[in-house]
């Protein structure tokens, strides 16, 4: 048992932190977030060629770096810390995981190769507009037409859906409900019958879109896995993505804590820095507690995710570990963001200071892939029903 980073993992984290400090400062975030695409294509290209993060946990056989989920989580933590605006989450945490879990050999060989080359971004669409990130959320439908599949319906809250090159979508056989009849398909975003539109969002640092399918015709090779048997895979993909997202939330927590300690250590009132008042210190202590507890949750979840992908005794804990991590980290991030804003006082309420960027990101990532209450209900259901 060694529940600590190896030297190599430490190095990956430190390299990420140093790179991001250089490329994703406040000015860079603000430039990217006001564009419709939501990221700087040149920076993404640098990430794909210099850092190779898009390939971080893609197996070496498919052209990737062949690192594990712990390395992915360590990198996501740093991205969350610097609020990096990029298609990384959609491409790697959603689509690469989807390809790894549900893709056949040919799909993996081709699309993982394309992603690793940095020539393709991708995303996952499944939610028709439900508040729940579960099977019921899937409303788009598929049906057979000879040797082809026809897709119809709508997706909402699709991360980077308007800019991604490759879409992985879930749809259900007409007339089915719940986990029944769900299939996963993979299609280039410019396929005939696909309409996409950017959805302006309160959190400008992560972009969302609607995707509309109208009689989209797909060949057999677009299907991922067995027809109608897709929910188990999709649930696993969502759990894996939720763990990565929780890691990003922990990075945000750490940054908020550091910003708050730095600010309160400079701000003087009544001839003392406000950091010297217990009312402020005790709030900061609670923020540190939540940050460290959240961090413990994601490191464990990362180990579980690794085994879920590549086998091991912890593989069966994926759903629980994802819900434990996503529920705690979601609530912690938003709580820290609110506390940070309060301790910054008036300037925390301004557009000029960065607190609001984190405050908004905290709420958007809390709602993404299931909020704290939803994940606790999942845990409750396993414990009590």
């Amino acid at each position: 048992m060694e529940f600590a980073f190896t030297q190599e993992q430490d190095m990956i984290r430190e390299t990420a932190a140093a790179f991001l400090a250089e490329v994703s400062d406040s000015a860079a975030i603000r430039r990217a977030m006001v564009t419709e695409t939501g990221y700087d294509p040149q920076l993404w290209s640098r990430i794909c060629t210099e850092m190779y993060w898009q390939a971080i946990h893609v197996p070496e056989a498919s052209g990737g770096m062949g690192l594990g989920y712990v390395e992915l989580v360590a990198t996501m933590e740093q991205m969350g810390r610097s609020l990096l605006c990029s298609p990384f989450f959609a491409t790697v945490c959603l689509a690469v995981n989807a390809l790894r879990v549900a893709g056949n050999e040919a799909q993996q060989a081709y699309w993982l190769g394309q992603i690793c080359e940095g020539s393709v971004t991708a995303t996952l669409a499944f939610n028709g507009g439900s508040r729940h990130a579960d099977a019921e959320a899937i409303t788009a439908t598929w049906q057979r037409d000879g040797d082809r599949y026809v897709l119809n319906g709508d997706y909402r809250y699709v991360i980077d859906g308007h800019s991604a090159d490759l879409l992985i979508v879930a749809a259900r056989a007409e007339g089915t409900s719940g986990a029944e009849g769900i299939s996963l398909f993979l299609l280039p975003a410019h396929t005939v019958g696909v309409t996409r539109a950017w959805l302006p969002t309160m959190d400008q640092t992560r972009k969302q879109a609607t995707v509309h399918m109208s009689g989209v015709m797909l060949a057999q090779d677009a299907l991922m896995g067995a027809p109608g048997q897709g929910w188990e895979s999709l649930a696993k993909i969502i759990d894996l993505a939720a763990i990565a997202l929780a890691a990003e939330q922990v990075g945000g927590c750490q940054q908020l804590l550091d910003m708050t300690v730095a600010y309160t250590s400079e701000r003087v009132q009544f001839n003392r820095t406000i950091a010297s008042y217990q009312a402020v210190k005790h709030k900061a202590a609670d923020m540190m507690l939540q940050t460290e507890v959240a961090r413990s949750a994601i490191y464990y979840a990362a180990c579980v995710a690794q085994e879920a992908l590549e086998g091991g005794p912890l593989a069966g804990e994926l759903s629980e570990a994802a819900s434990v991590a996503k529920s705690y980290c979601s609530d912690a991030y938003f709580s820290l963001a609110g506390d940070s804003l309060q301790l910054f006082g008036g300037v925390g309420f301004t557009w000029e200071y960065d607190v609001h960027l984190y405050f908004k990101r905290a709420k958007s990532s809390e709602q993404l892939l299931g909020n704290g209450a939803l994940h606790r209900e999942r845990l409750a259901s396993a414990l009590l029903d």
Partner: protein
Amino acid sequence: MKLSFSPEDEQFRQEVAAWLQQNLTGEFEKLRYRGGPGDEHMFPEERKVWERKLAEGGWTCVGWAKEYGGRGCSIEQQVIFFEEYARAGAPGRVGHIGEGLAGPTIIAFGTQEQKEKYLPGIVAGTQLWCQGYSEPSAGSDLANVKTKARFDEARGKWIINGQKVWTSLAHESEYCFVIARTEPDSVAHKGLGFFLIEMDQPGIEVRPIEQITGTSEFNEVFFDDAVCDAGDIVGAPGDGWKVAMGLLGFERGVSTLGQQMQFQNELDEIVRLAKSNGAAQDPVIRQRIAGAHAELKIMRYNSMRILSGQSGSDGALQKEALIYKLFWSTWHRSLGELAMDVLGPECEILEDGPYELSRLQSMYLFVRADTIYGGTNQIQRNIIAERGLGMPREPKGAAK
């Protein structure tokens, strides 16, 4: 990062579990799940016998080096031992203060003579210890101890006068380790000594404190010209604070994982109860049970980070250790409230008159101590802010 135990460790786990299964039977059956915090007053005599039984099997002081009579277990094996011990429902250890606090302090700071005199009794489970730190005017401000130690040249002994409070197991213990002022005019953490004192003597009186639970496991201990041999001071006169602080480091040990197993037992009981009385249908209760479950899981991962001995972000400071007490005490306090809310109106009804509490009722009341003893939540937050975040200390008040 690697979370699995080695095959050797798994075999050790089976060995521990098998021993407990074979031995926690017969006269010891009634001790299952008893004698933990909040329940220390139960079956003290039987638990003393159990302590010696453990010692015979070689299951006391498992983490101590073999040269001191321990089992020399690795961190992993210690974790396994405490987990299996709690999983089996084995009783609260009457010897835990000796094994976890007094012994490690003597090993770290004591003389050869002290080691020979005290360690074997702890290992054998025959000599129990209690801790003499807090005083009526030295609670959170622990350095404000008033108890005095004066060296009597004629008798060649230390003479101790003063009062300690919140001393658990004082009435059951053979020895007490005490911090007392060796320099009469000294203040705060200067001029203190760390003494090993025999309890059975005319100069010591123990008075139980009746607690919120109606039971007594804490005591007041009065020292009225109590004596202590010249050789029974640990470190030099004046070094007591250093020794005492070194000891606090031992309190964040592997036993936290056993404590968590006890928390798990309590949570399991609450889950069973909720399923049987319908509370499990209440969406608010469901959220709270799931939240408690999630945080207990994370508490275990946090302990694994502590034991792996590396901080998550900068490697220098063990932040996950700094927050631990505040985390578990607050969690446990909430668990008590959850237990009562799951019970509903039934939470009021006692097992029996005049004041016999059920296990959950007793837990609910006793957890109010968790956020007070061993550094209150307010003191914990000061420590976290000052040591973990580098925020300034609050100015001290003027001495009276």
